[in-house]
């Protein structure tokens, strides 16, 4: 844990009207680690993600990437700097083919977007790369279908493939297995495990399922009502009375 943090938030805050959805959250994230962000519904987890990846502008505080202040930058510029984001609700290009969905990510990574005089179909290397990533999420056979025709589980996988194709330094997964069938879940969990094992990537994971969190995370951050209420090693966090009180539901079991 001696490496410098890739990503840090300092006093990050956002208000919607009078409601403070994320309140003064400071945390640092280092390469080779997987941090799970947990908390009750409405705790601000997804909003915190949106603040980091730039979908929402912060009301106060900073987001630092490699020590550089990126708070004023938009989502696209942060994506260019290595922040990759998968969404909780599937968020695809519905009328484009599965392959084109992934190729758009590959192309963004390769910086080809503004090339307006070459033929899209001439960029063979982007196609090959996209097919490779589709293969990894077991979607290669469906590459010519339109994205909207995929089943829910396959859409989730495509979402993951797009994230992989961006080849980011920071992977942000927002409930990647939500709504997936039992046999599809391991494919995605293995992928996340694999990313973490590469050692130079930073993974952030919002997840409800505690078994998933327990099997993957090196560290847990607990958000509650927009505040960061706990941050540390999984065993310690799980054992902490504040966290049990706030989230893990131990109190309920006793009272029932």
């Amino acid at each position: 844990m001696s490496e410098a943090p890739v990503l840090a938030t300092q006093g990050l805050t956002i208000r919607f009207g009078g409601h403070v959805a994320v309140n003064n959250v400071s945390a640092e994230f280092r390469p080779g680690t997987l941090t799970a962000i947990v908390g009750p519904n409405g705790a601000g987890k997804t909003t915190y993600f949106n603040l980091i990846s730039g979908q929402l502008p912060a009301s106060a505080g900073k987001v630092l990437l490699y020590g550089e202040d990126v708070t004023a930058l938009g989502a696209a510029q942060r994506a260019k700097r290595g922040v990759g984001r998968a969404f909780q609700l599937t968020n695809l290009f519905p009328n484009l083919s599965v392959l084109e969905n992934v190729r758009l990510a590959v192309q963004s990574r390769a910086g080809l977007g503004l090339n307006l005089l070459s033929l899209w179909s001439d960029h063979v290397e982007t196609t090959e790369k996209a097919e490779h990533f589709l293969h990894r999420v077991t979607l290669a056979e469906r590459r010519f279908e339109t994205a909207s025709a995929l089943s829910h589980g396959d859409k989730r996988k495509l979402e993951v493939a797009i994230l992989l194709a961006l080849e980011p330094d920071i992977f942000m997964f927002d409930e990647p297995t939500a709504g997936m069938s039992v046999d599809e879940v391991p494919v995605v969990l293995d992928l996340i495990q694999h990313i973490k094992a590469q050692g130079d990537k930073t993974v952030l994971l919002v997840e409800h399922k505690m078994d998933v969190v327990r099997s993957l995370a090196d560290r847990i951050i607990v958000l509650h009502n927009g505040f960061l209420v706990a941050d540390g090693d999984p065993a310690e966090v799980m054992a902490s009375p504040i966290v049990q009180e706030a989230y893990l539901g131990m109190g309920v079991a006793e009272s029932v």
Partner: protein
Amino acid sequence: MSEALLTLTGVHTHIGQYHILQGVDLTVRRGELTVLLGRNGAGKTTTLRTIMGLWKASRGGLVFDGQDITRASTPDIATAGIAYVPENMGIFSDLTVRENLLLAARAGEPDAQRLEWIFGFFPALKKFWNQAAGTLSGGQKQMLAIARAIVEPRKLLLVDEPTKGLAPAIIQSLITAFRELKGMETTILLVEQNFGFVRSLGDSVAVMDDGRIVHKGRMAELAEDRDLQQSLLGLSLDAHQ
């Protein structure tokens, strides 16, 4: 066993090109709390939405209180006596707590005595009475959503995963609320993934998978039978132990 209040017979529901419900048979008995369990994507929310008329059944029939509601519109179903608390709670965040409840009281102002009874287990609502609902916390919104469904007596209450991600203290108030409602002979159909929350509350239980009901029975039996729990609920139980 009491008589049936709501009966679903072979209900199929399509959403776009997806065939979500594939022949659901379900009976909700008067005065009982029926729990609908199942993993994500099994079709629980779709079942509730189909009952509410928000999505139309493509085949099969729904009978509520002796009335065929298969083709009825959502407002008609609501007027017939079904209240709905959706998964996202459906709070009107620009309106105050009071205005949210006012909309649910179709006759005019909400009954004061009933309000006091609701404040008894959801005190936060009284505290933030004239506050925009959007400024409430997630738990307080859930309280408001349930309060809105019970501010007038309804024949049947549909509640979709009320505990999802809530803090224990709030879950505790929900348990109190549901106990109170059971005491008043309210019929409830509750969708849940949190087995711990419903095991002591439920009378009947139905388990869904892949758009069908795969198990029906008494909650007491399921609560005792660990093997049955394991075989039926597998992953979702592990996730919430």
